[in-house]
C-alpha cells in the first residue's frame, strides 16, 4: 500500500473525480498506485548505520531473514514479517566478505554465501549470533580485480548443487578461469564446469520444476536482456569464455564460434550446443537490466500466479512476471509487467512460503528509478485478483491466452481489441541491438473459449522473434481493462499440435 495514498482516500478520490475535474487537476492514479491495490508494498526500516545493498536474501526458520550485502555483510533480520513492519531488528552475522550475491541456509546451522572468489559456508558455533567459522566450500574459478567479475550463487538444485553464474571480465572478454560460465558446486565442494556463454548475469534460480535459469543483460551478443536456461554442456550466447573448454575436461571441445550479425534462430541451428533464451525482456519496453529471480511456489498465497517466475529489473526498479512453457523440449514463454515503484534498483528477490516476495535493492554504480541507494521491501498479495493475462501459450497457428478473470466476450472476441507485432535483435559481437526484422501480421481471429476466461488468437508466428501483443480493447466481464495490457512472448519453437 502506498502510504501516501491510502486505499480509502483513493476510492474517495475516484468517486469524486468526475465531479471535481473542473476545480481540481487530479492526476490519474499512477500504475504503481493501481498495482498497489492488488500487491501492496511494505518498506522495512533499516537502521541508520547499516548500508543494506541487498545482494541476496534467504528465508530462515522462525520468520527470520538472512540478507547479504554488496559491502560484504550478512545480517539476520527479525520482524521482517510484521505488518506494519515496525519491530524489525538487524543482527550482523558476518562482515568483511567480498560482495555476497548468493545466500542459502542448509537448515543444519550452515549459511552458504557466494562471494566474488568462492562459495563459503559460515556457522555460529558459540551461539552469540555471529559466525565463528568461515569455510571455503569451493573456489575453482578465477578473479582478477575487474569489478565486472561478479559471482551470483543459486540455491541448491535437485541434486544439492549450488550453481554459480560468473560474469565476464568486462563486457567482451574472459581473462580469468571460467569467467562467462555457470559452474555447479557439489555438496562436497567439487566444481563442475556446466554452461558457457554467459555475459553479465543479474540473478540465478530454479523454476517450479527445478530447472535452472539466470538473467543476462543487454550488451555484446545480447540484443536485449534475457531469461536464459542453464543446462550442462550448453552454450547461452557469448563466446567470450570459449577458451576455458580446455579446462572443462567433463565437456567436449568448444562449440563453433557464432557469426556476428546473425540471428539467434539461425545460429541455434548451426551450433548444436546453443541453448536459446527462454524470455526476452524487450529493452526500454520492459526494463533495462534484468536481475534476481523468484519462483512462486506458494500455491496461491501470492495470488493467481502459482509456479510462475518473478524477475527484478535494477534500472527500472520493478518486478516482472514470467510464464514459461516447453515446446519440443525447449523453454520459451511470455513476460509481463507486474509491479513497479520499488524504492531502489531491484537486485535480489526471494519468495517466502507465506506468499511474501522480499525484494532487495541497490543503485550503487548503476542508477535506478527508485532513487534510494538501497532498500529492503516486501510485496504482499492483498487478496484481490487483478485482471491480468494469466498464461500465454503458443499454438501451431497462434496463441492461447488465459486470464485471471472472466472475459467480456464481445471485446475479447474482437481482433480489433488487440495490436500485434513481432521483431528480433541482431545477434552480434557489438553492444546491444535495435529491434530488427519487424513485422505486423494481422490477428486473423480471436475466439473466446467455452470457459469464458481464455482466448485463441490466430496469427502468423516467427521463430526467434519477440511477439509483442497489446490488448488495449480487451475488457473483463465487469468491464475492467487489463492492469497490464501487454505481453512479450519469445518464440523458439512452434508446436505441431
Amino acid at each position, binding site marked *: 500500500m502506498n502510504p501516501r495514498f491510502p486505499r480509502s482516500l483513493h476510492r474517495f478520490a475516484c468517486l469524486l473525480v468526475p465531479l471535481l475535474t473542473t476545480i481540481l487537476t487530479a492526476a490519474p492514479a499512477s*500504475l504503481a498506485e493501481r498495482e498497489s491495490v492488488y500487491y501492496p508494498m511494505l518498506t522495512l526500516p533499516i537502521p541508520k548505520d547499516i548500508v543494506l545493498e541487498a545482494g541476496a536474501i534467504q528465508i530462515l526458520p522462525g520468520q527470520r531473514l538472512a540478507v547479504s550485502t554488496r559491502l560484504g555483510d550478512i545480517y539476520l533480520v527479525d520482524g521482517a514479517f510484521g505488518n506494519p513492519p515496525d519491530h524489525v531488528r538487524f543482527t550482523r552475522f558476518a562482515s*568483511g566478505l567480498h560482495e555476497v550475491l548468493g545466500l542459502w541456509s542448509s537448515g543444519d546451522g550452515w549459511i552458504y554465501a557466494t562471494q566474488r*572468489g568462492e562459495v563459503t559456508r559460515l556457522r555460529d558455533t558459540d551461539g552469540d549470533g555471529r559466525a565463528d567459522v568461515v569455510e571455503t566450500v569451493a573456489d575453482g574459478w578465477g578473479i582478477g580485480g575487474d569489478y565486472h567479475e561478479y559471482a551470483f550463487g543459486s540455491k541448491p538444485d535437485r541434486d544439492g548443487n549450488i550453481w554459480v553464474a560468473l560474469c565476464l571480465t568486462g563486457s567482451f572478454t574472459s581473462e580469468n578461469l571460467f569467467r562467462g560460465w555457470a559452474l555447479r558446486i557439489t555438496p562436497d565442494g567439487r566444481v563442475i564446469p556446466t554452461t558457457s556463454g554467459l555475459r553479465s548475469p543479474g540473478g540465478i534460480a530454479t523454476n517450479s520444476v527445478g530447472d535452472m535459469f539466470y538473467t543476462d543483460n543487454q550488451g555484446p551478443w545480447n540484443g536485449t536482456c534475457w531469461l536464459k536456461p542453464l543446462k550442462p554442456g550448453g552454450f547461452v550466447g557469448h563466446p567470450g569464455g570459449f577458451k576455458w573448454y580446455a579446462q572443462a575436461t567433463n565437456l567436449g571441445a568448444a562449440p563453433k564460434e557464432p557469426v556476428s550479425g546473425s540471428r539467434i534462430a539461425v545460429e541455434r541451428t548451426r551450433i548444436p550446443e546453443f541453448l536459446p533464451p527462454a524470455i526476452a525482456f524487450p529493452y526500454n519496453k520492459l526494463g533495462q537490466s534484468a536481475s534476481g529471480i523468484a519462483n512462486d511456489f506458494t500455491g496461491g498465497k501470492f495470488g493467481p500466479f502459482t509456479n510462475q517466475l518473478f524477475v527484478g529489473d535494477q*534500472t527500472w526498479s520493478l518486478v516482472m512476471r514470467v510464464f514459461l512453457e516447453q515446446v519440443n523440449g525447449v523453454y520459451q514463454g511470455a513476460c509481463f509487467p507486474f509491479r*513497479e515503484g520499488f524504492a531502489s534498483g531491484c537486485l535480489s528477490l526471494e519468495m517466502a512460503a507465506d506468499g511474501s516476495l522480499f525484494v532487495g535493492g541497490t543503485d550503487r554504480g548503476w542508477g535506478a528509478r527508485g532513487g534510494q*541507494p538501497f532498500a529492503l521491501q516486501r510485496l504482499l498479495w492483498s487478496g484481490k485478483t487483478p485482471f491480468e493475462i494469466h498464461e500465454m501459450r503458443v499454438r501451431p497457428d497462434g496463441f492461447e491466452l488465459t486470464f485471471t478473470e472472466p472475459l467480456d466476450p464481445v471485446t475479447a472476441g474482437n481482433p480489433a481489441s488487440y495490436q500485434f507485432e513481432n521483431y528480433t535483435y541482431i545477434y552480434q*559481437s*557489438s553492444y546491444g541491438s535495435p529491434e530488427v526484422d519487424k513485422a505486423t501480421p494481422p490477428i486473423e481471429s480471436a475466439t473466446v473459449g467455452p470457459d469464458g476466461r481464455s482466448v485463441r488468437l490466430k496469427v502468423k508466428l516467427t521463430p526467434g522473434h519477440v511477439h509483442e501483443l497489446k490488448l488495449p480493447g480487451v475488457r473483463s466481464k465487469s468491464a475492467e481493462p487489463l492492469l497490464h495490457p501487454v505481453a512479450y512472448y519469445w518464440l523458439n519453437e512452434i508446436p505441431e499440435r
Partner: protein
Amino acid sequence: MNALPFRLSAGVFALLGLTTLLAADVPVAVPVPTGARMDAGELLLGELNCVACHAAPLEISARLQSRTAPRLGTEGLRLTPQWIRSWLSNPAASKPGTAMPDLLHGLPAAEQADAIESLTQFLVSIQPAGAPDAVSADPARAAIGQTLYHSLGCVACHAPFERGAASAEVLAAATARSIPLGDLARKYPAGELARFLRSPALHRPSGRMPSFNLTATEASDLAVYLLREQLAGSTAAKSAPVGGLKWDLFEGEFHRCADLARKEPVASGTTDRITAEPARRENNFGLRFSGGLEIATAGDYTFWASSDDGSQIRVDDRLVVNNDGEHGGNTVSGTVALTPGFHSLEILFFQLGGGFEFSVEWSGPGFQRQPIPPGVLKHFARPLVPLGQGEFTGDPARAARGRDWFAKLNCGACHAGKGLPEGRPATPLPSLKAKATRGCLAETVSVGIPRYTLSVPQRDALRTTVAHPESLASAPSPALQVESTLTRLNCYACHSRDGLGGPVAEGRSDWFQVVGEADLGDEGRIPPALTGVGAKLKPAWLNQVLREGTKVRPYMATRMPVFGSPALESLPAQVRAADRNASAPADPAVTTRDAKFGWKLVGTDGLSCVACHTFAQYPSLGIPALGLGTLGQRLEWDWFRRYLPDPAALRPGTRMPSFWPEGHAVNDSLLGGNTDAQIQAIWAYLAAGDKAEVPTGLVRGRQELIPAGEPEIYRNFIAGAGSRAIGVGYPEKANLAFDAATLRPALVWQGSFMDTARHSTGRGEGFEPPLGDHPVSLPPGPPFAILPDGDASWPTETGTAAGYQFSGYRFDAKRRPVFLYRFRGISIEDAFAPKPGDVDMTFVRTLRFTGASPGPVWFRAATGTVTPGPEGTWLVNGTLRLRFRGGAGEARIVQGELRIPVAVPGELVEEITW
C-alpha cells in the same frame, strides 16, 4: 586494381551507379547515404563545382554549396614536382575517384609534355617560400599515427588500413566506399602534410576535409603514418634538424637526474610538447627530452622548470636550470644568452612517488613566459623524404610558359590563389538546357574540354538536372536543405538523421571506439543521431560546435571536427526550421527555490542522476555518462521536458531510464511528486552549468574502517595482496592482508586499517592500498615447498597449481581469524597475534602443521637482503626483523632466501617485527 570488384559494388555510391565504366576508371567519389532523397544531379553540380565555369544565379549557386578546388600559390601547399607531373598527366589515374578533370586529353604528345612540364615549373614557382618542416622518419610516430587514424574519425570517410573488430568483408566494403587519399607518399613532404592536417580549410576552403583540432604532435604523427611508405627510403637520408624533441622513458626509482644516465630507456619517441605524457604511468619513472632550439632572434632567454620531483635543463651543454633532487612542487629558473641558429637542449625529469608536477616554460626577446612552442623544438634525425624525390631546378622561362598554359586551360576558374590568372566564364548554367548532352557531358569529350571521370548514371543525373534548371529554382524545404548540407559534408558518415546515414548504416561502426573501459555501450562510441537536432540543441551551442568542434563526450574516441565550410553557417537555422515545433513552449520562468529542488533531485538524496552522469570535474558514481554541467548550455527546454519522461522515444536504444514512467514521478517525496515541477526544477538547477552547487553523493570522502575492540575483516581487491585479499585490522593498530589465492600474508602495516570508500562507492573499481603507515611486503611466491635438498631452487608455481587449497578461517576467542589451508596432504593453521612495541610492531605468527608430508617441508620466510642480527634474529631488506621458534632445524640462507625446515606434524612460531 585489386579493390575494383568492391568499388563496383559499393553501396554508398550505388545511387550514382558505376556499371558501364572501363575497368581503369573509378568515377568521382561522392558519398551518398542509402535512401537519400536529394537530386543526384544537383549534388554533382556542387561537388564538381560546375558553376565555376557555368555561372548560375545566386539562388542556385548558394544552394549548390559548391566544393571548390584547392587553393594554389602562397595559400597552397608545397607539393613535390614529381607528383604534380604525374597528377597533371592523368588525375584519375593518380587518384582514382578524384573530381579533378583531365584537361590535356587528346593533345599531341609533345604539346601535352610541354604543358605538364611548364605547369609543374609554374606551380612550384608560386609555392610558399621556404622549405617544408622536416619530420623524423620515426616508426614510433607512425605507430601512434596509426592509432590516431583509426580512432579519431579519419576512417569515417577514408579507407581503414586495419581491420579492428570488423570482418574482412566489412573492411573490403568500407574500403570501396571511401574518399580516396591518392599517392600521398609521392605528393607530400611530411611537414607539409602535417600543416595541411592542422588547417585543411586554409587550402581547401569549402571544408569537405575537416580539422580535428590536432595538436602539432598529433598532426606530425598522423602525417608520418600516412606517409609510412617514405620510411623505408628515408634510412639513407642525411640527418637534419627535424620537428620536435626526442624523448626517452626510463623506469625505476630515481633520486637525482644523473641517475637516468645509468639506465637504458624502455621507450623512446618524438614529441612537440614537453610534458610527462610519454610516461603513461604515475610513479617511478624518468624522462629525457633531447634535441635543440631553433632560435630566430638574439637575446637573453629565461627557462623555468616546475617539477615534483627533480628536473634539469641544459642549453648548449650548460646547466641553465637545476631543480634536482626529491622534492615537492617548486619552480627554478635560469637565463642564457642565445644567438640565432641551432642550440642543443636537454631536459631531464624524474618522478619517484607521491605528488607530481612537471612543466617547462621560457621567455625571450619580445615574448613573455610561456610553454616553448612546437615550431622551435628540433632534434637531429633522418627526415622523411617524399618518394621519387630528385633534383629540381627552377626554370623561370618555363614557369612563365606554365603560367600561359594555366590561363589557356582555364585552371583559374576552379583554382583560386593570389596573383593567379583568373578563369573565364563558359555558357551560363541556365542557358545550357539544350546542350545538356554536349561539352563536359558528351559521350566523347572533345579536345580542350575538361574530361571528368563520370559513371553513366552520374552523367545521366547531371544531364537531367542541367536540362531542367527550373528544378533548381524553387527553394528546397528546410529538411531537404539540411539533407543537402549533411550529404555534401558527409556528416552522414558519423551521424544518422531521419533514418539516413550513420556509422551502422554506412557499415563503418566497427571503427568507432570508446576510450578506455567506459561501460556505455554504443552510446559511448557512436556519435549521436541528428534526428530532431534543431529542436534539441540551442542555436548558439550548435554554432559553437560547428565552428570549434566539441568534446563534451570525453569517452568517445572520435572528435567532432571543424569543417570551416561556409555551408555550415546556415545549418543551425536550417535544422531549426526543419525540426523545431512551432508551438514549443517558451523557457519556463524558474526561481532559486526551483534550482534548490533540482539540486536535491540530481543528487543521491533524489533521483541520483549522478549515479551515471559526471558533473564538472567530478566523476559519476558509475559509468561516465555525459556531464550534467554542459546541459543548460546545450539543450532546448522543449526537448529536455519531452526527453526526461521518455528518453528512448527521442534517443532510441539509450540506456538512460525514465524516472517519470508514463508521466508519473517515481520520487513522490520532492515537490509532491509533480512530474512537471520536478523536471522544471532540474532544468533550473542545471542552468547554472558547472558552477552550480555540486550534487550530493559525488564527492567521495574517506570511509575508514576502524577496528574497535576486536579485529575487522576486509575481503576485497587490496593493492599488494591481490584480488582475493583478506585484510585484517587489529585494534592494536597492526594490520595484515592475507592473499587467499597464494596462501600467504602478503602485506603488513601499522596504524589505520583500510579506506573502504573506493569499494563502497560507484562500482567499486580497482585495488585499494593500505590506509596506514609502514607497509611492508612479505615474500611473494609459494611459502612452502617440499624439497629433498634444502638448497634446491625454490619453485615458482603458486596456489592451486602448486597444490595449495584455501579452506577459510575461524575466529579465536579474541575474534582474531585463524587462516586454514592445505598443502599437499598437510593441513596448516596460521594464526597472527599483534604485539605492539614502542615504535615497532610485531605479529607473533603461529603456524601449526598436521597431517603427513610426502617429503621434507621448507618454509621460505624472506627474500632479498637477509643478514643475521642480534639474539637469533634475521634482518630483511632493512625493513623487517624475523625470529623463529620451533621448526625442524636450523634456518639457512640459500640463494639469498631465508629458509626454515618445518616439522609435520609440528609448530613454527615466526615473530615478524617492522
